């Protein structure tokens, strides 16, 4: 069976397994953990589209995550709009900010670490803006009022949130699958592999990169919108802090960069390890970050193509 067909079957199987997960996890702490894991998997999926498939490493995906979160929060608190409108507006805003940031960077041919630095700078600029303008609530943050109702994107139990997040994650996964199977996806990978050769084959490199960062920004904003609804509180550091950007890129790198399931696997491994670290150290703050750093070094040294790459190699050895 060819790999394309395996993926077509694997996607619904994985989504069904995730849908059944609450049966095993109960409705308490573990389900909450699974929900945030999916949230970061969605953010990682967004990063992977641009960084993994397109080879454009962003160090500022908090920019899109934070924009999605703030747009939905501000629309609710200041304008009284409902969060489902916020979800759409936040996603569009994430895509628009992606297009803006991408147009500026790619027009001037920024690549590699220069592109990474520019995205980091953009995220920092937005963090500072969110701190200083009045309508975001400034440094004190913004609180979304508690009004539990599905029409208000607030659920009475954890399972409600879990399934809402699962749908958003499914969107990111299916978008990635669609990209993989499309001409745009083939062009995106060609641009990653060799820009000169790609241009000679008729590929408009600027347009392809711009499309990728727009799509990536919109998907990352989805996870930001969910964050705002799940925790009902935001401040500039939570939304635009570099910690979010690091999470966005660690999961795909650990799981398998430029692969369909890499971000999900990476997010699960990272969250599980973070949990183990919490238990071992009685919740010493920051130790999970040290552990992620160690994991990153190990992966980069021994598994440059991540966990998915390792599974692939083991599979071939046994075949």
């Amino acid at each position, binding site marked *: 069976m060819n790999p394309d067909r395996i993926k077509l079957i694997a996607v619904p199987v994985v989504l069904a397994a995730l849908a059944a997960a609450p049966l095993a996890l109960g409705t308490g702490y573990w389900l909450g953990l699974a929900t945030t894991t999916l949230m970061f998997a969605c953010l990682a999926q967004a990063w992977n589209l641009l960084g993994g498939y397109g080879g454009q490493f962003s160090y500022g995906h908090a920019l899109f995550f934070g924009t999605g979160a703030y747009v939905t929060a501000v629309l609710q608190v200041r304008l009284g709009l409902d969060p489902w409108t916020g979800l759409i507006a936040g996603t569009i805003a994430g895509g628009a900010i992606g297009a803006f940031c991408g147009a500026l960077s790619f027009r001037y041919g920024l690549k590699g670490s220069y592109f990474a630095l520019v995205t980091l700078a953009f995220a920092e600029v937005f963090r500072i803006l969110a701190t200083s303008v009045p309508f975001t609530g400034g440094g004190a943050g913004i609180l979304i009022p508690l009004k539990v109702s599905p029409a208000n994107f607030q659920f009475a139990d954890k399972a409600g949130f879990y399934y809402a997040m699962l749908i958003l994650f499914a969107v990111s996964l299916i978008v990635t699958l669609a990209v993989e199977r*499309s001409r745009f996806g*083939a062009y995106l990978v060609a641009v990653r*592999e*060799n820009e000169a050769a*790609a*241009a*000679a*084959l008729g590929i408009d490199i600027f347009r392809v990169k711009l499309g990728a960062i727009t799509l990536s920004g919109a998907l990352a904003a989805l996870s930001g919108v969910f964050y705002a609804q799940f925790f009902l509180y935001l401040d500039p550091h939570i939304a635009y802090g570099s910690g979010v950007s690091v999470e966005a890129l660690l999961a795909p790198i650990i799981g398998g960069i430029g692969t369909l399931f890499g971000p999900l696997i990476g997010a699960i491994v990272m969250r599980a390890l973070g949990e183990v670290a919490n238990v071992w150290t009685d919740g010493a703050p920051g130790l999970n970050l040290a552990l992620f750093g160690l994991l990153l070094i190990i992966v980069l040294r021994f598994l440059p193509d991540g966990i998915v790459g390792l599974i692939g190699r083991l599979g071939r050895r046994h075949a």
Partner: protein
Amino acid sequence: MLEVANVSKRFGGLLAVDGASLKVAEGSIAGLIGPNGAGKTTLFSMIAGAVPPTAGEISFAGQRIDGLKSHEVCHRGIGRTFQITQPFAGLSVRENIAVGAHLHHRRRADALAAAAEVAKLVGMAGLLDRPAASLTVAGRKRLELARALATRPRLLLLDEVMAGLNPTEIGEIIGVIRGIRDSGVTVLLTEHVMQAVMSLCEHIHVLNQGRVIAAGAPSLLVTDPKVVEAYLGRAAAGRIEAGSRHAS
């Protein structure tokens, strides 16, 4: 079909191409030869849109193409290969060729099928699922050719596709290039393998220090003193000329 008129390219203080002009007739195999550093690859890059000319005009099928970007030139119907091969190393041979085929095929399945067809033309049908990174030099050169062909060009620019190949491989690729021409594609190639140039090309331009110093049929050029001088130096050219006077 292709017309290059007084094209120059300056890199800072270096005039790499200096008022070069050439014409390629539709349906022919034309050659561009010259010693190392003559400006062949620079001229190729300008035709392909990879670098803009400093001065001069380039037209293809009656339309100006100088100043267009690489991908726009490709859309007009010009394919190119790179002297230093540029495979998409992380992809399979089939996927590499499919990127070119996508120019005319939106659907992935169609592009992959077209890639398999093109692979047959260049003798890579058995290598379709190999990673491009694992190919030999000869394989990479063929892959360059296949990818460019997959865009269905009307004019194909081949930049030293035989460099680094052994005589058997050169013989094979000459056959492939003839086949491409017979299918209706015009070919302009640069090459150092003289035997191949002489047997393939109907018309040759000789570039030296950025200028076209001679043009014509291959048999006429080998006796042209300017050409001999460019390759072997003035003394050799003089000796050959003296020798031919003796003989006559």
